[in-house]
């Protein structure tokens, strides 16, 4: 059963997941860019799996390749939701 995708729930999952990958939790915020957070294509591929498991939202590598910030990603997931 997928969780409801709201800005808060998606941001929470993205934050928890990236923190689990080793990114400093305090630095993860909507305005933070993936470049600033040192989040790369492998992180995004793993993150996409978690998003699909939690929210049922499928993201392909081509969907996220131009996403620059945490906030942009959250918006994309909600738009897809």
């Amino acid at each position, binding site marked *: 059963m997928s969780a409801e995708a709201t800005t808060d729930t998606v941001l929470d999952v993205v934050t928890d997941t990236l923190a689990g*990958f080793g990114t400093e939790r305090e630095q993860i915020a909507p305005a933070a860019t993936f470049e600033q957070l040192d989040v790369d294509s492998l992180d995004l591929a793993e993150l996409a*799996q978690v998003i*699909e498991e939690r929210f049922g939202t499928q993201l392909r590598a081509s969907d996220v390749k131009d996403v620059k910030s945490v906030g942009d990603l959250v918006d994309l997931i909600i738009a897809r939701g």
Partner: protein
Amino acid sequence: MVITGVGAVTPLGDARSLLARWNEGECGVFGGEAPCREFDATEHMSTKEARRMDRFTQLARVAATQAVLDAGWGSAAPYRPEQVGCIIGTGIGGIATIEDNHALLQAERAVSPLAVPLMMGNAGAAALAIHHGLRGPVYGVVAACAAGAQAVGAAMRAIQTGDALAMLAGGSEAALTPLARSAFESLGATSPSGVSRPFDARRDGFVMGEGAGVLVLEDAAAAAGRGARVLARLRGYGATCDAQHLTAPDEDGSGAAAAIDAALTDAGVSPEQIVYVNAHGTSTPLNDRAETLALKATLGVRAAAIPVSSTKSAIGHLLGAAGAVEAIATVLALCERIAPPTLGYEQSEPGLDLDYAADGPRPLHASDGQAPIALSNSFGFGGHNAVLCIQGA
């Protein structure tokens, strides 16, 4: 060709700890296996980096950092990045990653995007290249239990041919997993008694261990140019294949003997100059007999006059890492002028009548006033034979 640094993660600690503890008679085998119980990857790298590596790569990464520090390289190699490469051998690669992801697949869950970059056998070499900025020849070597020695030999050739001025070379293995354990057991390769006692009449198979070893090899002139401390000289390398059987060695040791001959010829060294042999000595019935025959065939009367000992008596069989860790053990034995013992050896078997240094460490003396010279043997399933000839500094 000089060796300027060594680093290792072994069941008995780092490289110098291994030698010290082994010489004191300590054995790293517990419950029939030899894990690196003191190793915690996150003490050495970030969570992010550790997650991007299978344990076999983590072990190699830590061994390499020790090796470059030992070589006095500092944060960067003392050569242009394109002049430095890395060759890391492994027997299996990221088998824990394979098993974990197969379990996910069986549970109808998604396989990790990290599965491929963690399981691939070249992951160790790639991780070292990224961490140390090595842009020369970088690849993995797959030759079962000869892989670590083959990697050192291949790196030596890369420098000799001018492809690189310096190389990180070694091997890594982390295969203490349910599948690998069962697979070796099914094959009858591992010891039912769980005891590693090379050359002893009661030996009944090898004891699986894990670990990594990395050596810094440098072109001798380049190393001299930067005022490097030299630990040892890598004099020769010989590699052959039995081309007989997938797992069993030539019973007469002829393939291994050919590799020993090739290493001696490559080094320009005669059997009389060899003062120590770090044997492959797996504690399997077939290897230890065939290796003894190979040493007799190549070294003649000299074979019985020098200590022959097996690192596997202290830390079990590190598979693809064994050749590298044992080359390092040989380097340090030559530095200290002490041959480590074969632990646990008590009962002799007819025909296995070399001096296995069962009574403890032995002082090493060069016969002709030069720095002492030793051989390090490594053999592997597939019939691979790799022998390194190393001279102390």
